[in-house]
């Protein structure tokens, strides 16, 4: 199937079919998630209403990490198999991941001020998420720094793979260092330490963010392929 989609036009046809559904599902999941998260779910006994930031902060964090892993995997595909769409997918995913990281940092600061009393603290998880943001920015800058887009894609693929070591550091930082950010409640080797009344809206919001990621990724890949065609036409016209 991966080889089937080496032809960009086939992938574009698939995108045309998928995109309306994805947009609809994204909107639906966001509406349901926001309703459940902001209105229907219970307030925390300690934090009160501010816990509702969790429904944005946590899914954005999950997506920021998965997006980087996706980017690195696509980079590896483009380096080893020279798959044409893999490099474009990595290049398209990078700004989305950077955006999610910004959301994580900003919502985290907004959440931290009332709860921890500070906008920022240099604990292990916050610092490594900031490093993740810089890795994203470096990837974006590097992939657009060359006249030949293929060179940019391959160089940034190497960078993404080298920075992949940051992902486990972020994931396990709250276990390795006992600092301010709270430890994992969901993705651990035990049962989730969160009540279903909060878990369900969280999962719905996570799915909503994921569908949003897919939608915007497909839109960006489409636009990237279109700009490739424009570049090819320009080159033909010069000849």
């Amino acid at each position, binding site marked *: 199937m991966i080889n089937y989609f080496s032809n960009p036009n086939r992938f574009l046809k698939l995108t045309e079919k998928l995109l309306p559904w994805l947009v609809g599902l994204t909107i639906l999941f966001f509406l349901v998630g926001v309703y459940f998260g902001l209105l229907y779910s219970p307030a925390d006994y300690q934090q009160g209403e501010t816990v509702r930031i969790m429904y944005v902060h946590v899914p954005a964090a999950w997506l920021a990490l998965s997006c980087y892993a996706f980017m690195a995997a696509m980079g590896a595909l483009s380096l080893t198999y020279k798959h044409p769409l893999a490099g474009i997918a990595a290049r398209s995913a990078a700004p989305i991941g950077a955006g999610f990281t910004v959301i994580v940092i900003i919502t985290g600061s907004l959440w931290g001020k009332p709860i921890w009393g500070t906008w920022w603290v240099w604990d292990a998880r916050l610092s490594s998420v900031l*490093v993740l943001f810089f890795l994203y*920015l*470096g990837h974006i800058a*590097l992939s657009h*720094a*060359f006249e030949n887009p293929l060179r940019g894609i391959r*160089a940034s693929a*190497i*960078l993404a793979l080298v920075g992949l070591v940051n992902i486990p550091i972020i994931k396990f930082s709250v276990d390795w260092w006992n600092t301010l950010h709270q430890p994992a409640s969901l993705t651990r080797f035990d049962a989730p330490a969160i009540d279903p009344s909060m878990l369900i809206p969280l999962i719905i919001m996570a799915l909503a963010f994921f569908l949003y990621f897919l939608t915007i990724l497909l839109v960006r890949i489409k636009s990237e392929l279109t700009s490739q065609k424009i570049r090819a036409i320009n080159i033909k016209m010069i000849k």
Partner: protein
Amino acid sequence: MNRIGLLIIKDVKLALQGASDTGMTFVFLLLACTLFQFSIGPDQTLLIKVGGGVIWVVALLATILSLERLFITDFEDGTLEQYFLSPMSLVFFALAKAISHWLTTGLLVIISAPIIALLYSLPNEVFLPLFLSMVIGTPILSLIGTLGAALTLGAKRSGVLMPLIILPLYIPVLIFGTLVIYNVMYGHNYNSFLIVLIGLLLLSLALAPWATACALRQAIE
């Protein structure tokens, strides 16, 4: 192996003749530390507290500055393609470049570190751990830096692009290097951090030249 030695000797000779900015790196180190002192103020207790960190950050910045021109001359006059076409693997070429960069910049950093430690009135027991952490840490900086220089080779408007890429990768070295100094100053044992640094050195020694060779191959195409 002999070829690597020849490459290193050639690069070091070029550096000694003034083709790269070797001596200026040393002056930059002292200048940057002076800048810090001007901005923080002459309060000695504060300077002692931040001294270790300042030395390491300045070492990082000096290394990055000297990396800009690592591959440019070879790339521009076509020597890089000759290395690519030669029977020697590009991995060894990358390793030789990293070693010659360390000999021209890293050694200077190691030599100047005790001098800066004196300027910041760091206590006597810091000198040996500082020296050790620098001896282990500066090769890592050179290795990762060669990777960054190869990635941005031939980029238009590169400017601050290479530092932007390399600095997140330098952060673990920075953290463990300064942990050594701070643990000494607070009287704890620092061996474990030196061992982690050695681990980072071995990791980058194994992987960085290979990744650099990949990046160089793409620069040539």
